[in-house]
């Protein structure tokens, strides 16, 4: 179920003195099973773009197709679109409202109009998908949980809709390293085992470099760069000029190259860089 975006332009408050162009002629195709890392500086239009993909925002110009359905047309069932494309907002724990975790997760499936049995089944499954235990959390108030747990419950609330595409807006923002790792592990699991298409918005290069199969870079409402992480992280200067960086491992590798060490220029994961440095060290150590 590919997503196709064509010439998408969005202007906030058009025709008023406060009008601002958030997206400018963006075209993009996302194939099934990809894990897209959507990168960009604050205000680059990432959030605006993903809010178009499930019909929360209407384009000022341009078309969007999800699964061959043009969702920008009039009269399209938005609930159908939102079933297919699940969107997890930034700091999703702030949208919890029900008395118990189970009820909160059931909110989405209930809105679709599923049977009680089906809903219960989905709630159980979603809790498990986010790495929590049903018996531990289901009957507790979401407001008693820790920050990381609340976020997982919120994500479960979207997963319970069984979307085919999952969009996460800065899923690791404000979490401690353990919380971050477990969220990232969960995303990897959903993508690899669940076969979900995932779009992850982030400006943390280290998070995204190990996960994404393809990166999409935005700046000032335009799409400036797209490619595999390896291709994208080669463009250090371009990334820095738009207020982004490259993963720390890649930065280290580039610094070593600048110092005259003989390393490949396209390394970006910690593992790769470590292996390259070790290989270099062994080579240098031998002669004497």
């Amino acid at each position, binding site marked *: 179920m590919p997503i196709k975006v064509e010439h998408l332009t969005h202007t906030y408050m058009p025709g008023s003195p406060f009008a601002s162009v958030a997206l400018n002629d963006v075209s993009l195709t996302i194939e099934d099973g990809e894990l897209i890392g959507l990168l960009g500086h604050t205000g680059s239009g990432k959030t605006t773009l993903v809010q178009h993909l499930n019909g929360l925002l209407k384009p000022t110009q341009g078309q969007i197709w999800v699964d061959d359905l043009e969702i920008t047309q009039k009269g399209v069932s938005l609930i159908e679109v939102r079933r297919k494309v699940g969107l997890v907002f930034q700091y999703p724990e*702030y949208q919890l409202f029900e008395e118990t975790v189970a009820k909160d997760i059931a909110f989405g499936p209930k*809105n679709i109009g599923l049977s009680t049995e089906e809903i219960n089944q989905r709630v159980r499954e979603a809790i498990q998908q986010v790495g929590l235990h049903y018996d531990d959390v289901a009957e507790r108030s979401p407001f008693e949980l820790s920050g990381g747990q609340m976020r997982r419950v919120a994500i479960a609330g979207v997963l319970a809709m069984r979307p085919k595409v999952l969009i996460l807006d800065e899923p690791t923002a404000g979490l401690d390293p353990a919380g971050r790792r477990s969220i990232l592990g969960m995303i990897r699991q959903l993508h690899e085992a669940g076969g979900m298409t995932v779009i992850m918005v982030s400006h943390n290069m280290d998070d995204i470099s190990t996960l994404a199969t393809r990166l999409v870079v935005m700046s000032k409402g335009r799409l400036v760069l797209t490619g595999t992480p390896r291709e994208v992280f080669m463009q250090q200067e371009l990334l820095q000029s738009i207020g982004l960086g490259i993963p720390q491992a890649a930065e280290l590798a580039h610094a070593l190259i600048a110092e005259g060490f003989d390393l490949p220029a396209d390394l970006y994961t910690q593992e790769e860089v470590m292996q390259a440095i070790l290989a270099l060290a062994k080579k240098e150590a031998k002669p004497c």
Partner: protein
Amino acid sequence: MLRDITLGQYMPGSSPVHRLDPRTKILLTMVYIAMIFCVRSPIWYILPLLYLVLCVRLAGLTFQQLLKAIKPLRFLLILTFLLNLFFSSGTTIWFQWGILRISQEGVFTAIHFSMRLIFLVAGTSILTLTTSPIALCDGIEILLKPLNRLRFPSHELAMMMTIALRFIPTLIEEADKIMKAQMARGADFESGNLMKRAKAMVPLLVPLFVSAFRRAGDLAMAMEARCYHGGEGRTRLRVLRFGQLDLWATLITVGGLLLVIFTGVWFS
């Protein structure tokens, strides 16, 4: 959606009217209101009109902006006009049909009261159009200070107003975000009968209240961390001072009031 709501109607600017001390503007607005109530006959609304034109010109505003402020009152205006027109008692009757009658005095009163309403709203909106909400709060705080002796919490009142104003845009943004997040989970805020719609607000209101309380707690903590302990002995960053501009504005406005009183006495 909610983003399109603009708060208040303040139009930033640096005109002489903008630069007036907010206290002056509040007090002179009261003088202006007195002026309106002293007008005895519709013809003499010419004087407040001249005064309004002067203010609007000096403030760099347009009459469209004033009309926009009057617009929400149009039904009230029409009602006032019609009630006065048909139900005033008068001796010179021009037209009668059942209990409805139009008399010369009725027409006179209808015009008089409608004008009064229009001028009141137009004049007071010049105050809110040219004074930022924060400056307005500052002005009100100082003007209410004498009431402290009667244990009236003027500082607390002003602080509450300032904080409320400060957080309205934040909460609107937050509400917009939560609404979208719930819509992404299939929530429907727009259809159904009243009961259904009210129920649909729960997923919006609960998180909004939770976050408002959290913010309030954080803010209180941040204020205490900076040693806030109420208005006692507190100095200000921007000290309000009366200047020459305030003197001129007062002279013109009070002059206008006297002129209106004079016309009322002289021509009646």
